């Protein structure tokens, strides 16, 4: 190597560093297989694109006509509303259920377990049909003393409308799945975090909210994003209630009236994809928020300066102390 490393700066070749060792500039391994596979994939993609564009049966003009149809746009609104409300209910319940499952109180643990067992153990379709039929089971909802007089009552049909039934059905079912995701998240936080907070005299509820849950969110967010995107599509099952204003029902309705199922399926698919993409962007930012302190950390630069002098309280004996070495840098 000594013959290659110039000792005189004047003899440095262009691109060589003036100071420090000569950096390795190795020839990378060639991957001819990747180039071949890439060419094949490109060819397939081109053939597919060509067929999608030229095959008249796709009826792209119909897709364009209905993409912003008022029924479709309203359907998007209802689908988003169903997704957001049912996920909101599910998340609130899931936090509660996960905390209950970790409680010292055996009643809480039992209720939480039974809830998950029931709502995860029966099909969401069945639950939606059931909520649609709740007014048959209980025609009126009354508030009163148990086994005693009734104070006031409402017709179940007025309270549990098709929309409410759909949100309840989706939200309660989802809460069971999310509860398990939240439970896994809480368990993923090191037990030392709980002990440290306990040793500081913090109450259990504060520890869970301020110390454990925020750290568990790192683990909870990705599968919850998954569930939210799943929920977006599961809302198409609300016809079981029946609730008939969501995106899938709206596009199916148009398809049935116009005898053009394929372009209307494409309309629905495009919108589901657009919403999913937006949700994924949101998930990215939520993950970044809860990952602070753990993910993507670079060792922080340490300000140079003299070793700090300890400020002892006034009561302390001013004994000579051993000089501290500079703060260690990670």
């Amino acid at each position, binding site marked *: 190597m000594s013959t290659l490393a110039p000792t005189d700066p004047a003899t440095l070749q262009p691109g060589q560093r003036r100071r420090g060792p000569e950096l390795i500039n190795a020839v990378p391994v060639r991957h001819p297989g990747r180039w071949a596979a890439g060419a094949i994939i490109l060819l397939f993609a081109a053939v597919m694109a060509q067929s999608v564009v030229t095959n008249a049966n796709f009826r792209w003009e119909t897709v364009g006509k209905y993409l912003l149809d008022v029924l479709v746009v309203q359907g998007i609104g209802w689908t988003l509303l169903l997704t957001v409300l049912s996920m909101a209910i599910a998340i609130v319940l899931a936090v509660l259920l996960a905390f209950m499952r970790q409680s010292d109180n055996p009643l809480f643990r039992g209720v939480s377990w039974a809830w998950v067992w029931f709502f995860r153990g029966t099909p969401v379709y069945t639950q939606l049909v059931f909520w649609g039929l709740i007014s048959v089971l209980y025609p009126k909802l009354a508030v009163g003393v148990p086994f005693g007089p009734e104070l006031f009552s409402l017709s179940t049909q007025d309270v549990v409308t098709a929309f409410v039934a759909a949100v309840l059905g989706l939200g309660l079912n989802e809460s069971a799945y999310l509860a398990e995701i939240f439970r896994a998240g809480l368990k993923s936080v*090191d037990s*030392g*975090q709980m*002990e*440290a*907070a*306990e*040793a*500081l*005299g*913090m*109450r*259990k509820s*504060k520890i869970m909210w*301020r*110390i454990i849950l*925020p*750290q568990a969110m790192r683990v909870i967010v990705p599968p919850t994003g998954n569930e939210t995107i799943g929920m977006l599509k599961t809302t198409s099952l609300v016809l079981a209630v029946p609730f008939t204003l969501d995106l899938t029902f709206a596009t199916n309705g148009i398809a049935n009236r116009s005898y053009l199922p394929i372009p209307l399926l494409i309309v629905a698919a495009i919108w589901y994809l657009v919403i999913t993409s937006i949700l994924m962007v949101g998930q990215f930012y939520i993950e970044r928020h*809860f990952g*602070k*302190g*753990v993910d993507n*950390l*670079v*060792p*922080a630069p*340490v*300000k140079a*300066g003299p*070793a*700090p002098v*300890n*400020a*002892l*309280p006034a*009561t*302390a*004996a001013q*004994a000579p*102390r*051993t000089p*501290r*070495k500079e*703060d*260690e*840098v*990670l």
Partner: protein
Amino acid sequence: MIITSDVVTKEALVRIDGVHKYFGHHHVLRGIDMTVRQGEVAVLIGPSGSGKSTLLRCINMLETISAGRIHVSDDLIGFRESRGRLHDLTTKEIAAQRRDIGMVFQKFNLFAHRTALQNIIEAPTQVKGQSRGKARTRAMELLDRVGLANHANHYPAQLSGGQQQRVAIARALAMEPELMLFDEPTSALDPELVGDVLNVMKDLAKSGMTMIVVTHEIGFAREVGDTLTFMDGGVVVESGDPRQLIANPQHARTREFLSKVL
């Protein structure tokens, strides 16, 4: 208890009387008696599994004792005694007892999602209801005291082990405890980082803090300790002045242990 004339001036802060602890059928503590006086540094040594960490964790109720009594400044820890029976304290009452007892862990256990400063102000603001401004000022003083004033906004993952442990000490001090428990505070550190943590602990001892320290640092025990207690198999084998005990251990088991760690 025999109180000799030279110690009557110092009040007993921690009184451990006949403490036993079982984990299932495993008898971990087998009748521990110990007294730590105000301002004293009590050092606990012993082989792993001797029960020294368990004893420390019993003092702030991270473990519940099976028999005996622990008093910290005349408060019975973990229980209330009335009409001849012990009653479990509520979680709220236990939390209140822990406020005056600081603890430092082997693995630091800093809150990973909070910066050094946020770690320190968490308990004063959330438990004592201090204003954020006041807590921050105090936290910066404490960070300065442990030599990390310019690391206030670093997350634990950005700090070395030694720095994390010093932040953990500052976090415990922020609650202004009357007693500090150290559970092998330097055992998880690289050898070159041990000194910084021990220096902070020495300063703390000089400032008059009452400390119970579980450690393998015999040098620290000799230099800073007021008492040294050697535990093995869940019992106190011997206890006394650190320099005398290290120089002249009375029991064969103590001699054997010291010959391995010195």
